[in-house]
C-alpha cells in the first residue's frame, strides 16, 4: 500500500492574478483520479467522527470508499440518502469547522484532514453530469406550500415530493435559490450548478412559482387554508446598517444590495444587463464574515484599485471561512484589524470620499465569551474610499411576518420554532433555516428542511388518518 501523504491532494484553482479579474469559479475541483488518490487517504474509521460533525450526518467513510473503488454511482447513491444539494454544500460548507475538523487523520501529527468537502463536490458534480432517470411518483398524499426557495425550502420540497406530496414553492424573486442565487458569488458557487440542482428538484414534480411574495401577492392565511401544511423558509437577508453619519451618501451600500446587484442582476455585465453598479475604485468593506469576504472579492473583480476590509476584532476572531480569507489575501485584499468606522465622508455632490475610522483594543470578554472591542480615544484616521460596503449582519426577512402576526416570533424577530420538529405557534405551519436561527449556513438550513419534511409527512399522515376514522 502506498504511504499516505501528509497533505491533501492539491486541487486546481485559478491563479490569483487571473481570477481577481474575472467572476469564474476559483476552485476547479478534482479529477476522478485525483479524487481516488485523496479518497485513499481516508482511514475508514469505525467510529467515524467526521460523520458526527456533519449537520446532516452524511455517511462520509461510506461514500469515500466508493470513490476509492472508482464506483461513482455507488458514491452518489450514498450522498443522495442524506443531501439534495451536495454540489452546493461541497463548495460552501464551513468544512474546516465541521466534518474535516473532526477527521481522525487531521488530528494526527503532521497530517491534514481528508478533503471531505472537495470529495463530496466531486461526487455531486459527477452526479449532475450523469443524471439518473427520475422516477416521478404519484403525488397523492397531500398538498404542501413552501414559502421561500432557499436551500431550506428546496430541501423540504424535494424530500416531500419523493414521499408522495404535491409541493408548490413560492418565491418572491424572479429566480429560485435564495442566497445561493442572489448572495454567494459566481466565483464560489457557479449559478449553473445551483440551477442544475434546482432543476433536479423540479424534475421530482415540485412546482416553483417565482414573482410571488407571500403576504402581498397571496396571504399566508390563504396558504394555510388551501394547503394541508406549509413550510416557512424566508431567510434572514434584511440588511442592518450601522447608521453612522453619511450612510445615505452615494457609494455606500449594504452587502445585500451590492451582492444582489452583482449576482441576481448581473450588473458586472452592465450595460449588456441593465442594472448598473458604481465603478469600484477605492473600496472599503466593513465586517468579517463570509458576506464581507464575498463583497470584497467581488469589488476586486469589478476592477477596484484597492480593497480593504475593516474588522473590529482580530484575525483570530474572524468569522469567515479560513479558506475564503486566504483566497482574499492572495487576491490582494488588505485588512485593517481592530478598526471600526465612525462616519462616512462625502464631497459637495454627495459622493463618498472616505471612511473615518477609529482603532480598537480588546477589553473584557462579552456574553459570547469573545473579548469586547473598545475604541481607543484619539486614534481616528481616514481611509480614502469611493465605495463602502456594510456587511455587519442581517435580520429576518419581514414581508410575510409583518402581515401574519399569528406566527409567533422571538425577541430577535425570528420565527419561534421548535428546533427538533420545526413546528411553530400555528398548527400545520413549520419553519426552518435562517428565519429561525438567524443568519447561519447552507447545511444547517438544509438540515432543518430534512427534519421538517419528516415532520410534515407525519403531521399530514396523522391528520388524514383522523379524518378517515371520523368519517368511518
Amino acid at each position: 500500500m502506498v504511504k499516505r501523504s501528509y497533505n491533501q491532494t492539491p486541487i486546481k484553482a485559478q491563479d490569483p492574478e487571473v481570477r481577481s479579474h474575472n467572476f469564474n469559479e476559483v476552485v476547479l475541483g478534482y479529477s476522478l483520479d485525483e479524487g481516488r488518490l485523496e479518497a485513499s487517504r481516508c482511514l475508514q474509521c469505525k467510529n467515524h467522527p467526521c460523520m458526527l460533525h456533519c449537520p446532516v450526518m452524511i455517511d462520509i467513510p461510506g461514500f469515500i470508499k466508493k470513490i476509492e473503488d472508482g464506483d461513482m454511482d455507488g458514491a452518489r447513491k450514498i450522498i443522495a440518502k442524506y443531501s439534495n444539494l451536495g454540489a452546493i454544500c461541497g463548495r460552501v460548507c464551513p468544512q474546516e469547522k465541521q466534518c474535516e475538523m473532526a477527521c481522525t487523520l487531521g488530528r494526527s501529527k503532521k497530517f491534514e484532514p481528508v478533503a471531505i468537502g472537495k470529495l463530496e463536490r466531486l461526487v455531486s458534480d459527477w452526479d449532475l453530469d450523469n443524471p439518473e432517470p427520475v422516477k416521478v411518483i404519484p403525488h397523492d398524499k397531500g398538498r404542501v406550500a413552501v414559502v421561500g426557495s432557499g436551500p431550506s425550502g428546496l430541501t423540504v420540497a424535494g424530500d416531500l415530493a419523493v414521499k408522495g406530496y404535491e409541493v408548490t414553492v413560492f418565491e418572491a424573486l424572479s429566480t429560485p435559490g435564495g442566497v445561493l442565487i442572489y448572495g454567494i458569488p459566481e466565483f464560489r458557487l457557479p449559478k449553473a450548478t445551483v440551477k442544475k440542482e434546482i432543476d433536479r428538484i423540479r424534475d421530482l414534480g415540485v412546482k416553483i412559482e417565482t414573482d410571488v411574495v407571500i403576504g402581498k401577492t397571496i396571504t399566508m392565511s390563504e396558504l394555510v387554508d388551501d394547503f394541508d401544511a406549509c413550510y416557512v423558509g424566508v431567510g434572514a437577508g434584511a440588511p442592518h446598517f450601522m447608521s453612522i453619519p453619511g450612510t445615505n451618501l452615494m457609494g455606500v451600500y449594504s452587502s445585500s444590495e451590492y451582492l444582489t446587484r452583482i449576482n441576481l442582476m448581473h450588473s458586472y455585465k452592465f450595460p449588456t444587463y441593465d442594472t448598473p453598479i458604481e465603478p469600484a475604485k477605492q473600496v472599503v468593506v466593513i465586517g468579517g464574515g463570509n458576506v464581507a469576504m464575498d463583497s470584497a472579492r467581488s469589488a476586486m473583480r469589478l476592477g477596484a484599485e484597492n480593497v480593504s476590509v475593516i474588522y473590529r476584532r482580530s484575525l483570530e476572531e474572524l468569522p469567515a471561512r479560513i479558506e475564503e480569507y486566504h483566497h482574499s489575501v492572495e487576491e490582494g485584499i488588505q485588512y485593517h484589524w481592530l478598526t471600526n468606522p465612525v462616519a462616512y465622508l462625502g464631497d459637495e455632490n454627495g459622493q463618498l470620499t472616505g471612511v473615518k475610522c477609529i482603532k480598537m483594543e480588546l477589553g473584557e470578554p462579552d456574553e459570547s465569551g469573545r473579548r469586547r472591542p473598545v475604541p481607543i480615544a484619539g486614534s481616528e484616521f481616514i481611509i480614502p474610499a469611493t465605495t463602502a460596503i456594510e456587511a455587519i449582519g442581517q435580520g429576518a426577512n419581514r414581508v410575510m411576518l409583518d402581515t401574519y402576526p399569528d406566527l409567533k416570533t422571538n425577541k430577535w424577530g425570528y420565527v419561534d420554532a421548535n428546533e427538533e420538529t420545526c413546528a411553530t405557534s400555528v398548527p400545520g405551519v413549520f419553519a426552518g433555516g435562517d428565519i429561525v436561527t438567524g443568519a447561519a449556513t447552507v447545511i444547517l438550513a438544509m438540515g432543518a428542511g430534512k427534519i421538517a419534511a419528516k415532520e410534515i409527512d407525519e403531521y399530514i399522515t396523522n391528520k388524514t388518518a383522523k379524518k378517515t376514522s371520523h368519517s368511518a
Partner: protein
Amino acid sequence: MFKVTAYERLTTNEYQLWIDAPRIAARAKPGQFVIIRMDETGERIPLTICETNPKDGQIRIIFQVIGKSTAELAEFKTGSELLDVVGPLGTPTAIKNYGTVLLVGGGVGIAALYPTVKGLKQAGNRVITVLGAKSKDILILRDECAKYSDELILMTDDGSIGRKGLVTEAMEDVFNREQIDQAWAVGPGIMMRFCTQVATKHDVPVYVSLNPIMIDGTGMCGCCRVTVDNHIRFACVDGPEFLGAGVDWDSFMQRMRQYRVQEKQAFEQYEQLRQVQ
C-alpha cells in the same frame, strides 16, 4: 410571463399599459406598486398600480419615458409579454374618512395619485384635487380625477389649461380658504419637498410618495433606504408613503442621482441601436 392586454400612448412621453396579472389585481390597494422586469437582461423597475380590474384580472400602469428601461417598455404593444411582474408591493395608503382632503399631483405622479383620489372619495371625504403639468397636452388623467373630486384645480407652467403657475400656489389658496384635515403630494422630488413646506406652514399633515431607486422591493437589499424622522426606513416596505415633514429631502434627492452616468450611457447606447435598426 405577463401579457400586455392593452397599450396606449397618452402624451408624447407617457404611456399606459393594462397587464394581465390576476393575483395582483385581486389584492392591490391605492398606494401600492409592482416591480417589472421585461426580459432576462432587464432591470427591475417599480411602477405604481394606477388602477385594477379584478374581474378580468388586469392592472393598469402609466409611465413616463426617462431612460433606457422606460424607453424599452414604451416599445411594448398589445400582446407583448413581460418576464416578471411582482406585487402588489409597499404599504397601502391609509384610506379613511378624514373630512376634507387635498391631493396634489404633478407630472407622471398623477398616475400614482389617482388611485388615492378615488379611494378617498369612495371613503366619504370631501376631495379637492390639484393637478400640475408643463402644459395641457401632457396633463394626464384629468377627467378621471375630476370624476372623484369635489373640486379640481389645474395648474400649468404655460397656462395652456387652468391657471398658470405652480401647484404650491393653488395649495396656498386652498389652505387660506378652508380647513384641510389631511394632504397628499405625489410628483417629482422637488415638488413634493415644496408641497411639504407649504402644508407644514399651514399645520396640515402631508403624505408624500417617495420613489427611490429599488431592486427587490421586499425589504431585502436596503437600496431604497430613506431617512425619515432621523431613522433609516425602506421605502419599498415601510413606504412608499411617508409624512413629508420628517423626510430628509437632501439625501433622498441625492441618492436618486447615484447612477446618472451609467443611465446616460445605457440610454445613449439604446438610442443608437434603435437608429441602426
